[in-house]
């Protein structure tokens, strides 16, 4: 399906405009806009980011040793990922890379705890309502409370898996949030043996839940109605870190790029040289940049990151249960690359299982309870830290002056890597399911289902009681609002209210 012409309508005059604003269950200020002609044919579809956050300016000017703590405030969904990516970058500034083995193990434990808790939240909280009840189900069922009511065991497992992941984070960082475990050059605390033992006691049950989660994700995927078999099928190159032996590697590795047809394009690429591999482009209608492969250029160089890319990019997963699940995933697709975005949920649960297995192995490693925790060496002026965060590759890059203050900062988060891939998914769904149809809430939810598969973290952490969850406006060519529907905080559909302020943005 060629979706590219839908990025910009040839003649937007006279087209009706629909805005999904903001995307529910997606943090930050993002929206989808559709331009329709008089026959409801889709002429333009875009995922926009309508607010500039200025993360870099928040960091620049601060002492570099404060940064691993401060960056946690960039994101309330995955603060640990920012914490570790910043620490890895600043290890190099502090001359402390590689960190001592004990610090490496504890950081990995923290990171895989984050993978477990984030993936559990995504699947059971964000994705399973759509998969369990259907994309067209009543609004009041498509949420975690609906899942808890209809499938209490699944809901309980989701809560307990997330709780387990957070406990792993707590014993490595000292707190459930705002922890300060990682510092430039290593860690500032080891794991308390009593806390380790308490988590080990939970492992048999947690492993069983994680295995059940893979089974559930597979069953839901394979039982999707036939009309969703090719839902948002958007072939894309796949990028991730892998181990030097081709293993799945989420904390530290080398970059691999695989073409959409499965051929490996780039392998063993040093993450410190990522600028030679990718660049970022801007477009006038959104604040989010578009990373692309330098060798292919802006139009053809986009790629996908995250669970669906990682599970297919690696040669194997170095834990037995998850590797068996990966092989089953590959076999179920006939060994061919998979680009239907709903398969992301299945891949995500395979990673969750890998995360639990990895946590189990690390809890058995005596190094986590002690040993040298910090390395020192010649001070450097810059550093790059790259990890595979739950949603995909996360890059932190810093330059630091002689006065220890950060002079330049660049972050490429997984959602930014996936910008074009998400836009392609939106267009594919718009063409397949909305084109020529009378727009309903259920049809609009199809677009959100595609975006949610990526779990974009468009911003983070700012929230307050009373935010508007969803508004749709239909405008005439002269800008008049022909129809405006607000889905209120209680889920009621209200008409004739004022349009949201941000709706004015293109």
């Amino acid at each position: 399906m060629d979706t590219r012409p839908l990025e910009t309508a040839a003649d937007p005059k006279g087209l009706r405009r629909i805005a999904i604003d903001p995307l529910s269950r997606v943090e930050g200020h993002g929206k989808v806009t559709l331009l329709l002609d008089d026959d409801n044919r889709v002429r333009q579809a875009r995922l926009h980011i309508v607010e500039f956050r200025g993360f870099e300016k928040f960091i620049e000017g601060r002492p570099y040793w404060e940064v691993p703590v401060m960056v946690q405030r960039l994101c309330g969904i995955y603060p640990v990922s920012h914490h570790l990516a910043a620490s890895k970058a600043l290890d190099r500034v502090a001359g402390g890379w590689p960190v001592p083995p004990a610090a490496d193990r504890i950081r990995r434990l923290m990171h895989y705890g984050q993978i477990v808790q984030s993936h559990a939240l995504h699947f059971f909280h964000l994705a399973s309502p759509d998969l369990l009840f259907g994309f067209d189900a009543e609004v009041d069922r498509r949420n975690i409370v609906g899942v808890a009511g209809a499938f209490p065991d699944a809901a309980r497992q989701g809560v307990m898996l997330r709780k387990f992941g957070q406990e792993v984070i707590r014993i490595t960082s000292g707190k459930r949030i705002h922890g300060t475990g990682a510092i430039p050059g290593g860690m500032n605390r080891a794991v308390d043996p009593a806390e380790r033992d308490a988590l080990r006691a939970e492992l048999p049950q947690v492993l069983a839940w994680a295995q059940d989660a893979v089974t559930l994700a597979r069953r839901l995927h394979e039982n999707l109605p036939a009309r969703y078999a090719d839902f948002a099928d958007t072939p894309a190159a796949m990028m991730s870190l892998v181990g030097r032996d081709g293993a799945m590697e989420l904390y530290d590795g080398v970059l691999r790029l695989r073409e959409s047809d499965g051929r490996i394009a780039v392998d063993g690429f040093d993450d410190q040289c990522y600028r030679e591999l990718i660049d970022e482009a801007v477009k006038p209608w959104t604040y989010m940049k578009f990373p692309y492969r330098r060798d292919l250029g802006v139009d053809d160089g986009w790629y996908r990151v995250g669970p669906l890319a990682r599970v297919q990019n690696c040669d194997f997963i170095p834990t037995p249960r998850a590797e068996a699940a990966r092989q089953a995933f590959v076999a179920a697709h006939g060994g061919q690359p998979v680009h239907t975005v709903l398969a992301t949920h299945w891949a995500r649960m395979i990673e969750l299982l890998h995360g639990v297995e990895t946590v189990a192995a690390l809890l058995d490693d005596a190094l986590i309870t002690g040993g040298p925790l910090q390395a020192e060496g010649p001070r450097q002026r810059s550093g790059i830290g790259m990890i595979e965060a739950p949603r995909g590759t996360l890059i932190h890059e810093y330059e630091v002056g002689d006065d220890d203050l950060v002079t330049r900062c660049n972050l490429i988060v997984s959602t930014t890597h996936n910008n074009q891939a998400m836009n392609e998914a939106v267009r594919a769904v718009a063409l397949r399911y909305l084109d020529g149809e009378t727009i309903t809430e259920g049809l609009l939810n199809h677009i959100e289902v595609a975006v949610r598969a990526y779990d974009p973290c468009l911003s983070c952490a700012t929230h307050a009681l009373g935010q508007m969850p969803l508004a749709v406006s239909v405008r005439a060519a002269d800008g008049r609002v022909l129809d405006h529907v607000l889905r209120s905080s209680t889920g009621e559909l209200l008409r004739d209210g004022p349009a949201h302020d941000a709706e004015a943005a293109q």
Partner: protein
Amino acid sequence: MTAPLLVLGWGNPSRGDDALGPMLVDALAAYAGRALPAGTVDCLSDYQLQIEHALDLVGRERVLFVDAARGLDAACQMRRVEPQRERRITSHALSPEALLQVFADLQQREPPRCDVLAIRGRRWELGEQPDAQAVADLEQALARAREWLHDAVARGAHTEGVNA
């Protein structure tokens, strides 16, 4: 042992008035440490209200949620919260009502009595600090939270803690 009272606030300390919830929790924890017997109240903060916080309610007698809120006419506002199968498709965070419903579904019993204290917020930008007006509103909210605390103790919250 689980303290019978829980104060749970949320918000991002680096996003303007979003910090007011965690700031109140910190101040109230310091006050409770001076004014109440140990083990009376637990004080927790997080970025956002999430599903696993349902487990923090287990074994409590009364709970106070604290968050910054848009659009308040007064410095703060206290209200009772009941479980509700809200129809909203939520963001990465839950409403207090939905959290109580998750508790009820998971635990198969009524949640403890819960109130929410909303503090007026007006500015939410990254890197901003609460201004003088916000700090003044916070003081009023803190006074209201102290009243809640003493009222809860007077109504019979055990000070020895209860088993979860």
